[in-house]
């Protein structure tokens, strides 16, 4: 099978790559573009560790083909901090120690950011339901939820 040429925008920068027709966006990000922040926890859409946004919409990159990124805007964990400055979500997760092994954390941050972009003032229940697509085996979720609520509050004030 011949490879497909894809032009896309990744974390604000134009990017081009060749990929196999059946290669996932997650594999493209990790193996071809060296962006290993998105993790593979299942490869089947069940864990959210691979969360990215495509044109602002939260998706599991393990369920999207690399070829589908043509002419889209892809955002990954690597684009969340602005240089040295952590995003408020990252800062709040740090402040609360809302992570342990950290392998789920990029997915939670990308998912929570997508939530706050559409709903800047979510209730705790809304946060819990939105993040229910992301599995964490370490933290018990408590501090993640609290960090997202805190970040939302700070971002509303800013």
């Amino acid at each position: 099978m011949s490879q497909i040429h894809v032009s896309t925008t990744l974390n604000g920068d134009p990017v081009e790559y060749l990929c196999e027709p059946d290669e996932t966006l997650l594999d493209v990000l990790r193996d071809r573009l060296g962006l290993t922040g998105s993790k593979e926890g299942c490869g089947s859409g069940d864990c959210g560790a691979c969360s990215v946004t495509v044109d602002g919409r939260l998706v599991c990159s393990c369920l999207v083909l690399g070829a589908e990124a043509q002419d889209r805007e892809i955002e990954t964990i690597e684009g969340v901090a602005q240089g040295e400055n952590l995003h408020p979500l990252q800062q709040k997760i740090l402040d609360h120690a809302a992570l342990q092994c950290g392998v789920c954390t990029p997915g939670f941050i990308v998912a929570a950011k997508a939530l706050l972009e559409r709903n800047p003032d979510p209730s705790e229940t809304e946060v819990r339901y939105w993040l229910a697509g992301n599995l964490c085996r370490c933290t018990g979720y408590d501090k993640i939820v609290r960090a997202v609520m805190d970040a939302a509050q700070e971002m509303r004030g800013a």
Partner: protein
Amino acid sequence: MPGLTNSPGAAIDVARKQGNTRPGMEKFGIGQAVRRREDERFLTGAGRYIDDQHFANLTHGAVVRSPHAHARIVSIDTGEAEAAPGVVAVITPDVYFAQGFGPIPAMTAIDGIVEGTLNHPPRHALADATVRYVGEPVVFVVAETKFKALAAAELVTVGYEELPAVVDLAHTLDADSPMIWPEAGSNLAFRFEKGDAAGVEAAFEGAAHRVTLDLVNNRIAPMAIEPRGVVGEYDAESGTLTLNVSGQAVHAQRNQMAAAVFKVEPDSMRVVAGDVGGGFGAKNFVYPENILVMLAAKLTGRPVKWISERSEAFLSEVHARDHVTRAELAVDAEGRFLALSVDTIANMGSCLSTMGPVVPTAASWVSMGGTYVVPNIHMSVRAAYTNTMPVDAYRGAGRPEAAYIMERLVDAAAFDLGIDPVEIRRRNFVRDYPYSMPLGLTIDCGDFSGTFEAAAEAIGLDGFDGRRAASEARGRARGIGLSSYLEVTLGMPSEAMELRFESDDTVTILAGTHSTGQGHETAYAQIVHETLGVPFDRIGFRQGDTAAIAVGGGHGGSRSLKIGGSTLLRSAQSVREKGRAAAVHILDAAADDIEFADGLFAVRGTNRRIGLFELERAVREAGDLPETVAPTLTTVGRFERERHSFPNGCHIAEVDVDPETGDVDLLAYVIADDFGRIVNPLIAAGQARGGAVQGIGQALLEGVVYEPGSGQLFTGSLMDYALPRADTVPDLPVGFNEAAPTDTNPLGVKGAGEAGATGAPAAIVNAVLDALKPHGVRHLDMPLTPEKVWRALLQG
């Protein structure tokens, strides 16, 4: 709240305050809610887990696994696979067994084993003529890419002659059950006895009540979010085999593989772990794939990587728990406990995994009886083989099973005797410390009733009746569940921790313990900062590499802070003493005149002073030192456990059950823990909560299910095996009781890692059964799925 130095919720408040602290205002000593130093790389996606690391010239492995639970291998045809595009090597059992490797070792030297027919059946990295569980590795294929390896693995044709299989623990010891190791004559791996059987029998005879409960501790899967993964490397020149592993006990893995499997000197093997995405015990062990990638690297001359797919994780990572128990409690007329009898069948799986035999025996009797005075205890365990994945240690390993037995039995006693579950606990708590438990250990200290009352107050036990009435008015059944748990810190009993002074005025902690998210990088640095006054950012951390760290006890049994932290404290104290001797020499002062504070040695009453790093450089560069002065402050401290410590606490759950659907809504959950001294409340509360949610998952959602007869795994994906999600659980306030300090170790800590998973299951089950009590339901086994609860209500 009485008895608690931090009320539930206080850790959260601490965290909030911490967030508002300006840089430079933070305190870094023991007891402070120091933010974790490891987190920034994780937050930005810069963590280096095994699958994120780069290896030049890498190849990829795929495992051909048995589709049958029990079968003889009659033929293996790898011709097509070998000819497939990109295939580099195919390792068949013939190739494997030609290496002369030994079997994967398991721990079987356990006091109390009274009968063992085949203590340790040979388990190899590839099946030897017979497969004994679905998923057992048969052939290993190596190719240029992961997909080529997977495609070629599909082309391997294995002929099987199916044999009858048994996966059901309750029947595997029946005389007519299919035999998994016919050489053994039965499926009994071994029998274990502990305690005074005659004394227990006598106590039951004289008791007013005999409370009997049959219960199942359900088989669960550890399921760290980062799947297992390994990269094998071989250096032909030096003959060194290297295993890069998402693992937790690098020294143990190296030593076991070198001595038992590869039969080489430990020095010719290196095991190294980078960031590890959770483990919970399951990544401690030597797995077939760990051996296969190293062998493949040696045979191909190239690095070989294998990363578990999620569905493969269900098939090939150790499972946990899986006990069937009859527990009996003798109770006197006043509701006081007289004796406990426990008879358990423990599933080992198809063979013995590394610590599998230890879990239901040595790791379980230690806390049997829990937080109560139980004058007589007898325990009997039959460990049995089944055609399933081997079972091994997972968060708590043995102690959650003991806690579940006791806390369920106490509620059953309350049910049978018509006593309030709160009241029966109050009547039986250990209140005098030290308390000698009948099976042999002594609880040095605790405040079981104080911790219990604090949790009861935090959840608002007094107002429960009103809340129950309100639920009933809405047509719902409400229940509250208590679980007063006892834990015992186990794991490797000794450790060596190095504090190495570097040339750039930093000091590195070289740790033989292993953090897979528990925050050692931070908590350990707090200990060093507190003892030596070294600025926090001058303290480096290294773990998980047998080439860099001489010895290590790794992870397990909530040991790290108690054993590793205490060892580190000893190292730091010894650095301070060495520094003092050096300062006497360098500052030319009398020993009594040297003061040490904030990282500076000073001569009392003068302005002569020298910083720790400057002093270290001075002694290192000095040519002629007196004998009293060590040539470097670099120090390896040691500590060995002499006495056990006993983390304990109380979990209380409040649930609402929908009688129409059987759905359980977890409304409130509080945790009061006694972990001894708290080094970092942020980290300790995180351990408590994370463990609790694993226990909540076991109680409500999780269960590994093999189909009886065929032995096929039903729960082979995250769609079939339900893990707790953010909407499963409410807020989880945690409070710490620091009122009962322990002197079992210099740091004064009791251990935190496994407590949550130990306390939670009984709290949930007791709460649901409390809700179902008006319907006459006395007991249900985990997981309490809506269907199970609904059926119980229908029958009740």
